[in-house]
């Protein structure tokens, strides 16, 4: 099941919210939540739920062992983590590994096709973070298996993040408090995310597929201008898609009394690659920082070791996104720029005018997504060649027409990548409340009230309209 589907919004979520509102007491609510989450999980294939159950059982067992047998806790931690990673490795990276062996040594001849269980990258990491936190004494082990299972399977974030740490929801799991003000914020956040995905992300995705097709053959037929347009649309699509899922997760959480941390902070307005990664998929980069970089020694073992640590972390970050070399390349691409910023430019980075820094960042990010898009090396080569004028296709009127036909959509999509509308709304609300130049203006307050009241329904209906005839609804991170 995907969030952006009529079934999810009109049936699943509606019933889920009813269950959370109607049931009394945290225990009942949690049981209902667990049932809904497992149903949600099974939607992609009940056979994969078994894996989730097993992984959770492993972590439940080992976390308790770590607490009960602290002298051997390191051994328990390593064993548990190793098992989880082996499972992840088997399902996600076997094909990749065997494929590489095949191209190097000609063996094995046949590579088995293993279907990637849904959400495995997310819940594996969440469970690892749980066990490590227990090991570090930052959180008490959860005695009840089913509560841990709820944590791992919570449908709000199990498929597409944010990667939620156990300690961040432990309190909510034990004791839930739902405030009207939070529900209200949750409703707004959810509908904004839903509309962002169904209307904006899906629409630019169509353009991205048109102008930046996935095959070398398709790319050869696209004029250079078309490729640039396609790259732009893909850049917008990835952000809008992914951040929308986090918006929806956070919004749904707030509606039920869960508090998830922010996962995106307008990454495209970043002024450096370092800044970008403080704003993009925050839960992933903090995971790697806290559970890989720092344990490896971080920057406390000398420059050489720091470089190696960064290399490993960014290689892994890339690899996490998919079992293909282009993802590793993508990760190391950022490693390169981060090293340049940290070690070569250092303080000098601040001396570059802000405008230029922003532009450089956008260019760097633009190309990172081109690398990210193509698993097939031939296609990647074709795309890059075409972008720099090597395209064989002659320019026609189709690109200009496509741009003209979608100019407002693209404008809105670009604005949606900035905090412009959010800031405008804050100022408007402040004015309506009585702060600032337009303090107390009746018309402003009236308009703000109207907008505050109707925007969730408006966005919901807009999204429903977009989803109704939309057979096109991919979620880019669905392979996770």
């Amino acid at each position, binding site marked *: *099941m995907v969030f952006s*589907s*009529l*079934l999810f*919004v*009109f*049936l699943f979520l*509606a019933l889920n*919210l009813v269950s959370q509102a109607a049931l009394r007491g945290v225990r009942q609510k949690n049981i209902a939540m667990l049932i809904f989450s497992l149903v949600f999980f*099974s*939607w*992609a*294939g*009940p*056979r994969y739920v078994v894996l989730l159950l097993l992984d959770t059982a492993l972590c439940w067992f080992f976390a308790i062992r770590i607490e009960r047998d602290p002298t051997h806790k390191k051994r328990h931690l390593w064993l548990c983590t190793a098992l989880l990673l082996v499972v992840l490795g088997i399902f996600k990276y076997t094909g990749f590994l065997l494929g590489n062996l095949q191209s190097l040594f000609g063996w094995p001849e046949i590579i088995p096709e293993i279907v990637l269980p849904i959400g495995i990258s997310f819940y594996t990491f969440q469970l690892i973070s749980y066990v490590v936190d227990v090991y570090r004494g930052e959180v008490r082990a959860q005695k009840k298996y089913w509560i841990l299972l709820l944590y791992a399977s919570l449908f709000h974030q199990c498929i597409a993040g944010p990667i939620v740490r156990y300690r961040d929801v432990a309190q909510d799991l034990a004791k839930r408090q739902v405030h*009207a*003000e939070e529900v*209200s914020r949750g*409703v707004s956040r959810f*509908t904004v995310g839903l509309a962002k995905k169904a*209307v904006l992300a899906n*629409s630019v995705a*169509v353009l991205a*597929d*048109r102008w930046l097709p996935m095959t070398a053959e398709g790319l050869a*037929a*696209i004029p250079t201008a078309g490729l640039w347009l396609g790259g732009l649309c893909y850049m917008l699509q990835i952000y809008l898609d992914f951040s929308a899922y986090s918006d929806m997760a956070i919004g749904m959480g707030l509606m039920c009394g869960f508090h998830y941390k922010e996962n995106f902070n307008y990454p495209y307005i970043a002024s450096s690659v370092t800044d970008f990664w403080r704003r993009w998929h925050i839960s992933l980069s903090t995971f790697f920082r806290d559970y890989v970089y720092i344990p490896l020694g971080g920057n406390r073992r000398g420059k050489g070791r720091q470089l190696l640590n960064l290399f490993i972390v960014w290689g892994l970050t890339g690899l996490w996104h998919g079992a293909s070399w282009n993802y590793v390349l993508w990760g190391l691409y950022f490693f390169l720029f981060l090293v340049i910023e940290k070690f070569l430019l250092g303080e000098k980075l601040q001396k570059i005018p802000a405008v230029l820094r922003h532009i450089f960042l956008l260019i760097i990010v633009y190309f990172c997504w081109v690398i990210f898009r193509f698993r097939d090396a031939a296609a990647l080569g074709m795309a890059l060649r075409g972008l720099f004028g090597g395209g064989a296709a*002659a320019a*026609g*009127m*189709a690109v200009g*027409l496509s741009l*003209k*036909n*979608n*100019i*407002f*959509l*693209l404008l809105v999509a670009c604005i949606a990548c900035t905090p412009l509308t959010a800031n405008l709304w804050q100022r408007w*609300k402040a004015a309506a*409340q009585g702060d600032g130049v337009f303090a107390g203006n009746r018309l402003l*307050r009236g308009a*703000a*009230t109207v907008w*505050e*009241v*109707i925007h*969730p*329904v408006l966005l*919901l*209906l*807009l999204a*429903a*309209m*977009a*989803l*109704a*005839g*939309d057979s*096109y609804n991919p979620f880019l991170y669905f392979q996770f």
Partner: protein
Amino acid sequence: MKQKDWEGSARPVKLLLFFGVLAALCIIGILFPRPTESEVEKRKLTEFPAFSWESFWSGKWFSGIDTWYADTYPLREVLIAGNKVVQSLYGIRSHVIVGGETQGEEIPDVDGNQGELPTLPQEDPEQKNDEPPRDGNVNADGEMISGIYVSDNVGYGLYYFVQQNSDWYAAILNEMNTRLAGKAQLYSLVAPINGGVLLSDSLQKELHISDQRESIRYIYSRMAAEIQGVEVFDTLREHVDEYIYFHTDHHWTALGAYYAYTQYAKAAGLTPHTLDQFEQVEFPDFLGTYYSVSGITSLGSNPDTVVAYKPMGTNKMKMTMADGATYDWFVVNDVSGYGSSMKYGAFAGGDQPYSVVENPEITDGSACLVIKDSYGNALIPYLVDHYQYLYWIDFRYYKGSIYDLVAEKNIQDVLVLQQIYNTGDNGALKKLQALAER
């Protein structure tokens, strides 16, 4: 606190409104009856998936439920209509290209040696044009539309030449010709679509679409010499300022079909009748496939009128449906009561497997068989007054053998009439080949 006052007082209304609407949409999805067919999209809607343990475990059953839920949601048509309005705001859409490929292949020069004639492929040829329809590439009436260019509220279909498929089409006709040798004369009429005829050649170059005149010439050059190719492109070009194609539909009008008919008459040695000899009827407010399937709402402001010309000898026909039942029908049917998307069905009973007209005013035993797609419908009425017996079959639905038909009914003329798309579409070519080999 005065600060939170207005937000606090707005909150209950906001929450009530949102959850109320959500609850309503949920209840509608559960209680209201669900449609089984879409008139606008001309297809059966997804059914609730059948349960099997295998599909349960693999998740296929669940994803089938997902599709079923969205496809048959009671308010779906309303929501889709709303979405089309929203999409029309995406940009400046006076000129739009929806779907389409990036360019067609080069059309080989036809002057000079014909070379070896193409033969039928033995195994499944490498699939071209077989990807699932992209946005804009739609399946209308079981016919593929490869892309639409909309300009000033008129839709133009886009055609892209694929040599392999054009050869395949010619090979199919060659096969038919071989088996009909000595029994009937085979005629081939490939009808250009409006994008090729109505748009200027320079605009077509800019759009990167293929030259249909040259494409048709190429196909004809690959047919055996005994097959009579009917050239209609130039004739249609001469009448470019007349209403020969619909604005909102991928078909030609009865007028466009008339001009093509005159060319067929020439090829078949018949004297074409003039339009004033027929009784004319009109059915306004036709919004065809370009409108309903492409989602370009601006076309809605430019509806078509279906003008039809009733045959002189008789307007009665017998049509046999897929289930074998035979009905009396009309060659030109009164569709004034039909939905606005269905008015092209006025011609020749729509797309049924097998139909016959017996013209009482002709007694010379002449008989003709038209192997047609939906383009043929508009041309068939004109043929009624030339043959005592006129048979037509839709290549997509007829399950019998055309050769048996020709022998049984003493048919002398066989006309294969297809729109140019079908010479490029794998699905259509497969069906035509099956028909030719039966």
